[in-house]
C-alpha cells in the first residue's frame, strides 16, 4: 500500500513539474524543445567513397578565422571530410541559418565542428534562451567534455595538468526560467533532475573508464543548495557504486576552484552541474594557456559537437590575424578520432606538438609575434 501511495505521489509530482516547466518556458522555446537526434539513422554518415560529412558552424568573433585554419589543414592533409557550412549567429539574426536546418544537419551528420557563438547580455525580444542553449536542447547535447592538458612549451604556472571536466549543460542554472514575480524581485530557477544527474554521472564514469582514468570528482554546493545540488550529488554517488574500480570523491565548488589554482594535479575526471562546470572549465583553461589552446566537445547520445573548451569570441582580434588556432585544431583532431580516422588525428596532434615544442612559431597569446596564418602554415609543414 505504501508503495502505491509513494508511486502515485511521485507521478503527481513529476506531472506537476512537467506542467510548471511548460508554463515558465517562453513560447518560442516551447515548440522547439524537441529532440531530433533519435529519429535519424545511427551510422555515421559515410558516402560511397568513404568520405565523411561534417556540419561546420564558424560562429562569431574569431571563429571564422580559426575554422578557416582547420579547413586549410584538412585540405593540406587530404583528409576525407566534407564540410556542410552554416552561418549561425545570435548577434546577426537576419543572416543566421534557421535553427531547424542546423539541427537537422547535425542530426544527420552526427558530427559538427563549431566556433564560438556570441551571446549578448540582454535580450531584445524577451527570449531567455540563447541560441547556444537552443541548439543544445534541440539536439539534447547534455554532456560537455573539456580536456585540460598542459601543452609542450606553453609556459604556465603549473606543469603537467591533465584533467577532464565534464559538465551537464541542459539544465541547472541554464534552464532559462526567470521571471519577475513582484517588481524588483526576480526569481531564477535552477532545475536539477535525477534522470539528468544520473545521466551525466554515468557519462563521466564511462568516460573515465574509456580513457583509463582512476578518479571521478563530483563538484557541488550541496552544503548550501541541499536539495538541488544534493540530488546531483546523490545521483553521482549512486552511479559511482557501479564503478567499483574507479575512485569517487566529492568537492565543494569554492574549495574546488581554490584547489584547482593551487594544486591542479590532484584532479583526474570532474563531473559538475551546469554553471559550476562553466566556471571550472574557464578556470582550468586559464591554467594551461587560455582559451586558444583548450579543446572541448559536447555529446548527446547520437551526436558529437566539437568546440573550444573555453568559449570566448575574442572580438577584439577579429580581422587582426592574431587568434590562436590550436584549440580549434585540437578539436578537429578529436573529431577525426571520434569517427575512427585515428591516423589523421595523430598526424594533426603530432604536428601541433611539434610546432609548439619547436617554439619558433607562436601566436600572441603564447608570447610570440606570429599570425594565425603563420601558425597554420607551420602546422601544415609539420604534417607527416
Amino acid at each position, binding site marked *: 500500500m505504501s508503495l502505491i501511495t509513494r508511486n502515485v505521489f511521485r507521478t503527481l509530482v513529476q506531472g506537476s513539474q512537467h506542467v510548471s516547466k511548460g508554463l515558465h518556458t517562453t513560447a518560442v522555446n516551447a515548440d522547439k524543445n524537441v529532440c531530433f537526434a533519435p529519429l535519424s*539513422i*545511427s*551510422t*555515421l554518415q*559515410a558516402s560511397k567513397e*568513404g568520405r565523411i560529412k561534417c556540419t561546420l558552424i564558424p560562429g562569431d568573433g574569431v571563429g571564422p578565422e580559426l575554422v578557416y585554419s582547420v579547413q586549410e589543414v584538412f585540405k593540406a592533409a587530404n583528409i576525407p571530410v566534407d564540410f556542410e557550412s552554416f552561418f549561425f549567429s545570435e548577434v546577426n539574426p537576419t543572416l543566421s541559418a534557421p535553427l531547424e536546418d542546423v539541427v537537422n544537419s547535425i542530426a544527420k551528420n*552526427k*558530427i559538427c565542428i563549431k566556433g564560438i557563438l556570441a551571446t549578448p547580455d540582454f535580450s531584445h525580444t524577451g527570449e531567455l534562451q540563447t541560441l547556444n542553449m537552443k541548439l543544445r536542447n534541440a539536439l539534447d547535447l547534455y*554532456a560537455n567534455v573539456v580536456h585540460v592538458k598542459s601543452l609542450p612549451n606553453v609556459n604556465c604556472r603549473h606543469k603537467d595538468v591533465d584533467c577532464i571536466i565534464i559538465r551537464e549543460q541542459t539544465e541547472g542554472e541554464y534552464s532559462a526560467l526567470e521571471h519577475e514575480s513582484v517588481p524588483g524581485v526576480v526569481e531564477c530557477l535552477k532545475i536539477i533532475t535525477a*534522470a539528468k544527474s*544520473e*545521466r551525466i554521472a*554515468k*557519462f563521466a*564514469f*564511462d*568516460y573515465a*573508464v*574509456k580513457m583509463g582514468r582512476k578518479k571521478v570528482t563530483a563538484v557541488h554546493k550541496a552544503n548550501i543548495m541541499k536539495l538541488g545540488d544534493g540530488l546531483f550529488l546523490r545521483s553521482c554517488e549512486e*552511479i559511482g557504486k*557501479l*564503478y*567499483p*574500480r574507479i575512485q569517487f570523491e566529492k568537492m565543494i565548488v569554492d574549495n574546488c576552484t581554490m584547489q584547482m589554482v593551487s594544486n591542479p594535479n590532484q584532479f583526474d575526471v570532474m563531473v559538475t552541474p551546469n554553471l559550476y562546470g562553466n566556471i571550472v572549465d574557464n578556470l582550468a583553461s586559464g591554467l594551461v594557456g587560455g582559451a586558444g589552446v583548450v579543446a572541448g*566537445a559536447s*555529446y*548527446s*547520445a*547520437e*551526436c*558529437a559537437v566539437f568546440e573550444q573548451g573555453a568559449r570566448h569570441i575574442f572580438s577584439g582580434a577579429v580581422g587582426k590575424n592574431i587568434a590562436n588556432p590550436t584549440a580549434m585544431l585540437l578539436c578537429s583532431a578529436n573529431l577525426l578520432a*571520434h*569517427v*575512427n*580516422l*585515428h591516423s589523421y588525428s595523430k598526424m594533426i596532434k603530432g604536428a601541433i606538438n611539434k610546432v609548439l615544442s619547436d617554439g619558433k612559431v607562436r601566436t600572441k597569446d603564447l608570447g610570440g609575434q606570429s599570425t594565425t596564418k603563420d601558425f597554420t602554415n607551420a602546422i601544415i609543414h609539420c604534417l607527416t
Partner: protein
Amino acid sequence: MALRLLSKARVVPELRNVAFASSAAAPAELSDFDMQHKTPVIRKQQLIPKAQYGGRHAVTMLPGGGIGPECMGYVREIFKYIGAPVDFEVVDIDPTVDNDDDVQYAITTIKRNGVGLKGNIETKSEAAYVTSRNVALRNELDMYAYVLNCKSFAGVPTRHKDIDIQIIRQNTEGEYAMLEHESVRGVIESMKVVTASNSERVARFAFEFAKKNGRKKVTTVHKANIMKLSDGLFLETSRRLAKEYPDIEHNDMIIDNCCMQLVAKPHQFDVMLMTNLYGSIVSNVVCGILGGAGLLSGRNYGDHYAVFEPGTRNTGTAIAGKNIANPIAMINASIDMLEHLGHHFHADLLRRAVNKTVNVDRILTPDVGGSSSSSEVVDSIIDNIETVAKNEIPIVLA
C-alpha cells in the same frame, strides 16, 4: 529436515559466506531456507542510463578463456578497420581464482553498458559454492531468452544444405537452476525449476521473434510425457500463447524425437522453443550439422541487457594459441551485436565480407574443411570489406 540442513552446513562451511557472492543484493544474515531459494527467478533490475555517447556505444568485452582472447583480438582488428562506432571495455576474468570478484565486476559493467560481447568463460574451480560463471552471468542479468541463428553456410561442406532454423532457449531456469543437494547420504536431488512467468516470457519472445522475422512455424520441444508437471507447464504455456498468434503455426515435439528428426530431416523446423537443457543439447546438435563449433553465434536477451557470444559454448582450450581456431563464430557474434546496437551499415558490410570469405573465396580453417590459419581468414575478411564496400556483392544464400 534438520538433519539435512545440519549436514549441508557441515559439508560446505564456507557456503554461508560465499553463496551470495553472486547474488545482486545479498542480505547480511540468511537462513538456510533463504539460501535454498537463493536464485529468485526474476530479478529486479535497476534502470541505468544507456551508454551511448555521440553515436558511439560502450560495450563490455569478456574475452574469457581458451580461444576467446585471440578471437576478440580479431574482432577488434576488424572493428578498427571498418570504423565501427563501438568502444570496448575489456574485463578479464581469472579462471583460477575461487572468488567471484571478477565475475561480479563483469556483470556490473554489462549492467552499465547494456550490451556485452563474450567468449566462453572458464570455471576451473570445482568447489560446490563457485557457480559456473556463464550461468551466473545469465542469471544475474536475467537474460531469459537465448537465440541461436542456425543458417547453413554455402561454402562449408555438410550433409544437409539450406538449413535455416532459429533456436530459442529458456536461459535462466529449468535444469540450470543450480539447486542440488544430498538429502540422504548417497541420494542427490537436483531441482528443475519451471515457472509460469518465465515460460510465458520466453514463449512470448519466441512468437514475437517469429512474427518480427516473418517466420511461419514455432515448434515447442519438451519431455512432457515424462515430466508431466514441469515440462507440462512449459508446453501448456506455449500452447496458450500460440492462440494469440494465429498467423504462426505451432506444434510440439518430444526432445528425443526432435534430435532424431534434426539429424534426419532438419528442414521441417523453423523456430524452435525449448527449456534450458534441451536447448543446450539441440543447439549443439544443430551446430554439428552445420559444420561445428566455429561458425554460429548466439544471442542472450533479457529485458534490459543483451550479451552476444559464439553459438556453442566451448572454450577451445586445446587449440588456443595455435592460430587454427575458427574466428567466424566470434565475428558473427560481433555482427549480431552491431545489429542490436543499430549500426546496420557496419553490420551489413561485415556480414557481406564474411559471406564472401566463407562462401565465395572459401578461405576456411581446418575445422570446417579448409586449410587456412585463423589470421588468414581474418586478413581475407579485411580485404573483402573493401571489395564489398565498393561493389554491391549480394549475400550468397546457401
